[in-house]
């Protein structure tokens, strides 16, 4: 694949990659590695690539577990779009979407058994990428839209 870094900012046209994953845990790694490869080719800093990997993996896990209830026959869609300034990842499922606020985990409550040790995925997504949108659109489905800017200074 030719690296887009050889192109000027104006020459970078919007490009799109789509994945269709079975709703089976483990397949989030395909989306994670695809996003990471794409981001690395675009010259995203290594620490931001790691942020993106975790955020994409967690969004896919949410879609597999909560959106599609682990039904392997139901597809999780992942659409990666880049333009000259950002990488956007949409993770689509067939669920009813997020209906509650995303709160930071309370580790003390978790340690005391007063809070479920799980339930940190959405918090991590929001903490690791530059923009997040949770879109609920039943009965068609729902999606999480994650955005990471290629140059944080130009947000």
């Amino acid at each position: 694949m030719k690296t887009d870094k050889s192109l000027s900012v104006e020459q970078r046209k919007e490009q799109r990659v789509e994945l269709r994953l079975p709703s089976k845990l483990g397949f989030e790694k395909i989306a994670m590695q695809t996003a990471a490869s794409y981001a690395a080719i675009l010259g995203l800093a290594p620490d931001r690539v790691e942020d993106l990997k975790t955020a994409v993996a967690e969004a896919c896990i949410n879609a597999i577990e909560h959106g599609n209830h682990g039904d392997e026959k139901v597809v999780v869609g992942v659409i990666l779009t880049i333009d000259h300034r950002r990488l956007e990842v949409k993770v689509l499922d067939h669920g009813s979407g997020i209906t509650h606020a995303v709160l930071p985990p309370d580790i003390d409550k978790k340690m005391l058994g007063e809070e479920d040790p799980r339930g940190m995925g959405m918090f991590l997504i929001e903490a690791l990428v530059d923009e997040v949108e949770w879109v609920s659109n039943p009965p068609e489905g729902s999606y999480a839209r994650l955005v990471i800017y290629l140059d944080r200074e130009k947000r």
Partner: protein
Amino acid sequence: MQSETSVKVEQLKTAAAAQVAVLRFHGDITSTSKAAVLDAYRGLPAGTGRIVLDFSKVDYLNSSGIAILIQLLMEGHKTSQSIHSFGLSAHFQKVFAMVGITKYTHLYPDEPTALASFA
């Protein structure tokens, strides 16, 4: 698709002759790792007070895996065990700090430092 979790348990003595149990994780730590991680931990000899978690061979860690580690730390906290960790990438050191785990396990850059911290 997921790399299975395995846990190797070693008993070491620090330079100061302190007994330390080291849990060396290999593979992925995800929702399917619960038995491997917690069985290894719960199989430690009674009275184990010092534990080191080695993440240097972990390929992939997600929030479900972190939840299992929280469960391990929760059990350790109840029995006043001292649990230290090393081998996490800079990214996962940041993630551990974000979710607050670093309040219950100190992160060290490498094994000698983690072991020496018990002296």
